[in-house]
């Protein structure tokens, strides 16, 4: 066991950190940012074994979280891109890796909470192939996506369909997210798809989706850890400069202990994220329990660290132009993404607990 970064990982983490910091203070042109991701090799990273691998993605996502990045990396590359790769959708994947197309996986439906594997959206056979009907909600980065991956119930079980954004009958209803990104609800009104638009991975749809989602959960944990780390740094900095009663408020033990508890929560969250990443190559059942357990703990840490940070900032924590609040907003979005705490704990419970 060894937690040191390799030379290559160090260099990459440094370059990624610099790029994301520059984006955070730059003009925020999504097209320019995405080209930068491509030029740095980040669009290939999830699909190449040499430099990639889950440990490297962990570093990228931490930097992403630290800088409150906005590019659709988790959605288009780690979630949808991974599904395309596992489903053998080579052509679409190539376009996504080249940066020419962005893809989004539509997991959730009204009233079904996080249960993506029992969709009410249906696909029936029609004259020209498949006819898709239903609604999906809360698809992050959907407004900028060109391709949608849509799980739907078919006569022979769970199916997965690839629909271009401009397919007739597909409508997007954009909604801003509280962390400065964009999502959309989607409706499919008898959308006609040709037969090859149904993706059939060798492993089966449920298996493919579960694997991609688990990888994305681990990545979202890394993002939260990065965001929490920066938020704690902002908080301790504030405690050092804000004076009341003639002294820096960071000299008060009551506040010091709250900051120390934030640190403890973050270190535990980081450990659990490392655990999740180390389990991504395990058997499917073990992998899913591990990532669910990890995100449950990281979610709890995010809620705790986020709200404590606001409290320690006092009124400034509530001002939207001050960064602390923005980190809290991002953490809240991530907490609800890909499974909230109770849902994940339930999954761990049903599996009989975390394996020792």
């Amino acid at each position, binding site marked *: *066991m*060894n*937690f*040191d*970064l*390799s030379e290559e*990982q160090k260099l990459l983490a440094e370059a990624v950190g610099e790029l994301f910091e520059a984006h955070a203070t730059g003009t925020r042109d999504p097209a320019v940012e995405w080209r930068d991701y491509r030029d740095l090799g980040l669009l290939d990273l999830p699909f190449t074994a040499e430099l990639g691998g889950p*440990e490297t993605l962990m570093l990228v996502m931490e930097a992403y979280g630290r800088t409150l990045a906005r590019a659709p990396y988790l959605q288009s590359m780690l979630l949808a891109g991974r599904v395309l790769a596992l489903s053998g959708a080579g052509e679409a994947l190539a376009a996504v890796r080249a940066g020419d197309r962005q893809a989004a996986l539509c997991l959730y439906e009204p009233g079904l909470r996080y249960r993506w594997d029992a969709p009410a959206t249906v696909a029936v056979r029609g004259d020209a192939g498949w006819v898709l009907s239903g609604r999906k909600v809360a698809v992050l980065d959907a407004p900028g996506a060109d391709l949608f991956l849509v799980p739907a119930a078919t006569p022979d079980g769970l199916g997965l369909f690839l629909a271009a954004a401009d397919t007739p009958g597909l409508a997007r209803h954009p909604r801003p997210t509280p962390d400065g990104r964009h999502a959309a609800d989607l409706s499919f009104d008898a959308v006609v798809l040709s037969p090859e638009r149904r993706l059939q991975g060798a492993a089966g749809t449920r298996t493919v989706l579960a694997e991609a989602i688990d990888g994305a959960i681990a990545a979202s944990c890394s993002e939260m850890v990065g965001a929490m780390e920066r938020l*704690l740094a902002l908080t*301790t900095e504030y*405690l*050092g400069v804000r004076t009341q009663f003639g*002294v*820096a408020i*960071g*000299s008060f*033990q009551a*506040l*010091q*202990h709250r*900051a*120390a*508890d934030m*640190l*403890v929560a973050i*270190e*535990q*969250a*980081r*450990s*659990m994220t*490392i*655990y999740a*990443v*180390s389990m991504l190559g395990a058997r499917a059942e073990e992998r899913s329990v591990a990532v669910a*357990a990890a995100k*449950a*703990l990281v979610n709890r840490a995010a809620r705790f660290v986020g709200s404590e940070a606001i409290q320690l900032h006092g009124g400034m924590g509530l001002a939207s132009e001050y960064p602390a609040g923005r980190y809290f907003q991002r953490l809240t979005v991530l907490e609800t993404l890909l499974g909230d705490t109770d849902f994940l*704990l339930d999954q*761990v*419970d049903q599996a009989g*607990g*975390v394996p*020792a």
Partner: protein
Amino acid sequence: MDLQFTGDETRFRADVRAYLLAEMPERIREAVYAEKPLPRAWMVEAQQILNRAGYAVPHWPIAHGGRDWSAVKRAILAEEIDRNACPKPLAFNVALVGPVIAAFGSEEQKQRFLDPIANLDMWFCQGFSEPGAGSDLAALKTSAVRDGDAYRVNGQKIWTTYAHEADWIFCLVRTDTSGRKQQGISFLLIDLATPGIEIRPIRTIDGYHHVNEVFFDDVLVPAGNLVGEEGRGWDYAKYLLGQERTSMGNVGFSRRRLDRVRARAGETGQIMDPAFRRRLTLAEIELKALELTQMRVVAGAPERGVDPKTSILKIKGGELLQTAAGLLLETLGPVALTAGFPVTARDAEFHGLDDHSAILSAYFSSRKYSIFGGSNEIQRNILAKAVLGLGSAK
């Protein structure tokens, strides 16, 4: 970065486990599993079994029985000892006084003390806390005044674990009152058979007698029992606190407790209660995280001094042991009410505690984890100052 244990580490774990299961007598492991206090002789027997395999003092210098094992391996060893319900080597001997003698003691002291300390042929207790010196340890007053070839020691220590079982006590004593309170402290080894020492038991809320008051009334201690230089005791104490941290989080112990909770709750059907199960699951997740935190602190430990993040292990490890003790108590249900123990039992009776009483006793005892060895509040002070850089008011 390699987040998996190496083949070598995995083999090491298997070897340790095989040795422990083969060599540690079943009666000892059963008593530890049931959380019953062990008779002194059993603790000595257990440590000698560990010492034979190099498991008692692997972190010591090789010349004195240490092994050239990585910190990760030593953490694995500590975890396996706990997890397989074997008694840990006596911390006062192997983790505290031994390393100080090895680092600062005279050649004569090393020859005289180190082997018996490792083998628990000589049992040390720790004389640090005093009635007026707890978290503010440097306020200690027990005095040692040079008197010819000896020190004349007067004062009182408190919360001295196993003083009634021990042969020797290592003490912080005040040899000079003129400077800052951290100066003028010396590190003295005192034979408990010396005239003028009185040991009085303190009964604790777990019904048991582990801690004591130790009184020194004109106790004459040979000057040759001073470790290192006079007046540098505070430095040695800081060094001592920075020693073996590989089991600081007590992850093996918590694992054993939580596994026992799951097993007991499974037998009684309590595991079907979703609220109970949820709390158990959360504790297991925190423990999994702590295992990794422990490994990260261990693998990244600085060559010298203490990684302040060790305080995270102390805080979280203690909280988890307390949570696990609470869950274990709850597995008794209403029987907990009648699982009392005779509060004035003699030790011999206490060793015969029934399983339920031992669980209740362990529950009360577990409050100590957030108090001893630097309370969790002191640990938070350390994190705030040393890691987060938050200062005191000017």
